[in-house]
């Protein structure tokens, strides 16, 4: 039996980085304030002291070049794990992410590969205003050539990050800022990996399927607990990775329950929930008892004020309301 211990999502990510760096000397970590300052969210705490400056390095504030250097380093035989301070700054790096990182293997006829990870904290709900509260997962998911992981739990944070680092493809690794302090049991086994493309059925239930990712899955679990009191049994599926996307698990569940709600933190318009809902409709039309419902971020730039910010992000209440609607 493998032992596990309780730790935070942040510490689980940190443990994954340390374990992998011990295992493979070709792994390097760089980004803004990741070394001396130990990361703005402290995910890279202790790495500089343990692995030295050649492997753990602070960079200039040059996001596009942070990603591009990782691309070049990966092509040159390293396994870089770059950090962008937040997902919002990834917009400055979209040229390297979309035009280079996602394209190089394909446009060069498969003659090279990019074993690299770009980590980025994201998500809203911390009153950081319009430019620091975005959920851009749909942007990355939309682009072929990028794998996209977004863990919900500390165990998955560890297991998915380790899988991302070992993957020979470019991975966008999203971390939710409001989950960093969340706690859970994390296996201590250094070979504990969570595979990409395998959704996690976090809770089983016969009445309705709720599909989420990252913090949305945690909210979905809380909603499911509320709904249980009213006799509604929810099945909660955490996608774990958005590319590859495990529709098989989602579709099998939706066929059984006949009802589904997709929860996404990003803006509703052209958000990933629309695509997932459509796929459920296409595959399960005969078995559905109600149209698939979406709970999404509001189509507005994020306001600062606490009172109105909370309206913009899915909440337990809005998920509960959506489930009740599909149950009608």
């Amino acid at each position: 039996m493998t032992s596990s211990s309780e730790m935070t999502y942040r510490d689980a990510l940190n443990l994954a980085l340390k374990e992998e760096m011990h295992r493979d000397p070709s792994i390097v970590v760089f980004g803004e304030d990741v070394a001396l300052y130990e990361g703005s969210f402290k995910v890279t705490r202790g790495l500089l002291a343990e692995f030295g400056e050649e492997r753990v390095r602070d960079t200039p504030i040059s996001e596009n070049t942070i990603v591009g250097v990782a691309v070049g380093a990966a092509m040159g035989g390293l396994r870089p794990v770059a950090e962008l301070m937040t997902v919002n700054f990834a917009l400055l790096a979209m040229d390297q992410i979309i035009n280079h990182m996602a394209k190089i293997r394909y446009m060069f006829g498969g003659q090279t590969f990019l074993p690299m990870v770009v980590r980025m904290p994201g998500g809203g709900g911390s009153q950081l205003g319009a430019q620091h509260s975005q959920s851009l997962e749909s942007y990355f998911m939309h682009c072929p050539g990028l794998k996209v992981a977004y863990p919900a739990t500390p165990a998955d944070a560890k297991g998915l990050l380790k899988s991302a680092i070992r993957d020979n493809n470019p991975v966008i690794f999203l971390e939710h800022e409001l989950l960093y302090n969340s706690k859970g049991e994390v296996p201590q086994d250094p070979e504990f990996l969570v595979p990409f493309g395998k959704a996690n059925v976090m809770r089983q239930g016969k009445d309705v399927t709720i599909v989420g990712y990252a913090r949305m899955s945690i909210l979905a679990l809380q909603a499911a607990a509320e709904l249980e009191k009213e006799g509604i049994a929810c099945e909660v599926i955490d996608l774990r990775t958005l590319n590859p996307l495990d529709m098989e698990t989602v579709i099998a569940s939706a066929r059984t329950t006949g009802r589904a709600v997709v929860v996404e933190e990003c803006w509703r318009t052209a958000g990933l929930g629309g695509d997932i809902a459509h796929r459920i409709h296409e595959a399960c039309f005969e078995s559905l008892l109600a149209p698939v419902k979406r709970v999404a971020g509001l189509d507005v730039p994020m306001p600062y004020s606490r009172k109105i910010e909370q309206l913009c992000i899915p909440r337990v209440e809005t998920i509960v309301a959506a489930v009740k609607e599909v149950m009608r």
Partner: protein
Amino acid sequence: METRLRSVLSDKELLRLYEQMVLSREFEESCAEQYTKGHITGFLHLYSGQEAVAVGATAALHQEDYILSAYREHAQAIVRGAEPRRVMAELFGKATGICKGKGGSMHLFAPALNFMGGYAIVGGQFPIAVGLAFASRYRQEDRVAACFFGDGAVNQGTFHEALNWARLWELPVLFICENNFYGIGTEVHRSSALASIFKRTCGYDIPSEKVDGMDVIAVYKAVKYAAEKVRETSRPYFIEAITYRFRGHSMADPAKYRSAAEHEVWKARDPIPGFAKRLLEEEIAGNEQLEDILAKARAKVEEAVRFAEASPWPEDEEVYNDIFV
């Protein structure tokens, strides 16, 4: 006074430079013809006029050194050792192309030759060159990453980010700016506040020099010196090669923004006949030998076209291959 050629390279090496320039020119002019015939489609940016830069620089580098370029990169790939027939097949979109027909003119790639790609977003190659140099130093491989780019690329953010980063991390990057005076139709004076590009590097504490990019020997000597400096110091170096493209930006560009007089001035400085004259004057080669080189280059290019024409198209299934490992 011009350098005596034999004081720089052996006769064999000098003739090799000539051969490569001639092959590059013949290849590009053949591409133009194939484009007109509809065999090459999409964007096509030709290198005619700039040969001395790719040829002189590549000869001065080690085979282990990385080369990256932009989208006017056929000559750089071929001079590095890519087979003309496989480059031509790539331009034709055939399965035998150097990137299986998936890249096209702007995305040549040959990792076995350390030719690390043609990039078609202006300035996209800068950070990648820095990353390759970082990997090289980390793995103690003693490679220089030679990054070619045009004058149009120097106002992209990545130019400044990469220069700063390469110097800050002390990485072996050799920046080679091919200043042909025009970013498509915008002359360098109309896009750069400081048109003398090599002077910009003082902001990043990177040594730089300007070289006559129409003189293959001048380019060779400058790059040789620069690459040695990079190896010795593990710090970047910057070369601005002044050159000229004889054709428009791409095949779609009649280049009406340049005067006929200007064009004539530069045509008179064509690097190929200029170098031929020196080879003859210094009795390194005779007329017959130079004509033979031209005939062989033509034959090679004609063979490349035949190969490309006869090659199969990619299979439909290929469309889904090579996204992920």
